[in-house]
């Protein structure tokens, strides 16, 4: 992995900073406008989850190369309460916060790879990957 961008997430303005950073990094990598909007929206959902549920955390953005292809990696990390039932949290429409319950499942649909590591009391780490379409 080369350059990393870290965005501390503490309040709502940081959500805006995180998604703008993701959009900028994605653009520098060569993603098209539609993909950049998906990336920024997914980051927004994850960053807001941090503010709402954990209070503080960070979004780490990086460019990696895997199997000869460039990929944008987004890691959302917090030391919050963790998610007791990940299966439930990944279901459309389930929410314990002020969203629509589409944040996690929605973010998952907007990227190519989605990984979540969480347990009660152990915080939550969500990793998203979006592959650069070939020929870009």
């Amino acid at each position: 992995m080369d350059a990393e961008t870290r965005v501390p997430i503490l309040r709502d303005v940081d959500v805006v900073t995180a998604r703008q950073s993701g959009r900028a990094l994605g653009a520098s990598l060569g993603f098209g406008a539609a993909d950049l909007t998906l990336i920024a929206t997914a980051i927004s959902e994850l960053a807001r989850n941090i503010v709402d549920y954990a209070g503080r955390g960070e979004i780490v953005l990086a460019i990696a190369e895997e199997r000869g292809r460039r990929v944008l990696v987004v890691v959302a990390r917090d030391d919050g309460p963790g998610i007791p039932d990940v299966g439930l949290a990944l279901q459309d429409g389930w929410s314990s916060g002020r969203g629509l319950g589409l944040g996690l499942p929605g973010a998952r649909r907007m990227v190519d790879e989605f990984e979540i590591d969480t347990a009660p009391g152990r915080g939550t780490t969500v990793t998203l990957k979006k592959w650069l379409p070939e020929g870009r």
Partner: protein
Amino acid sequence: MRVPVLKQGACLVAVFQPGLTDAELLALREDLSVRVGEHRARGVVLDVTALDLIDSFGARTLRGIALALRLRGAETVLVGIQPDVAFAMAQLGLTLEGVDTALDLEEGTALLSRRLAARRHNGR
């Protein structure tokens, strides 16, 4: 930065700015609800042309604004959702059910005029 709200005839137009925060969106909700009363506005246009995304919190809050304003007696129309934003919203499952949408400010104002005319016709 607060969302500027302009008065245009019997309508209010809220012009969203890029980089809108959650707090600013919630402030707009309060602001519009009060100003509909102050100006006796019958219609409100939410112009989101400048927004580069609408996530689940944004969609939920916009829908809440439109429904609350209807209870205050004003029709609301959301205009200017950009093509990529619409695509991402659909991907996310955000349908904004119960909220009228139009292509742009011009179409939105025309839609509101028709609705308000129909209201008068029905004696509401």
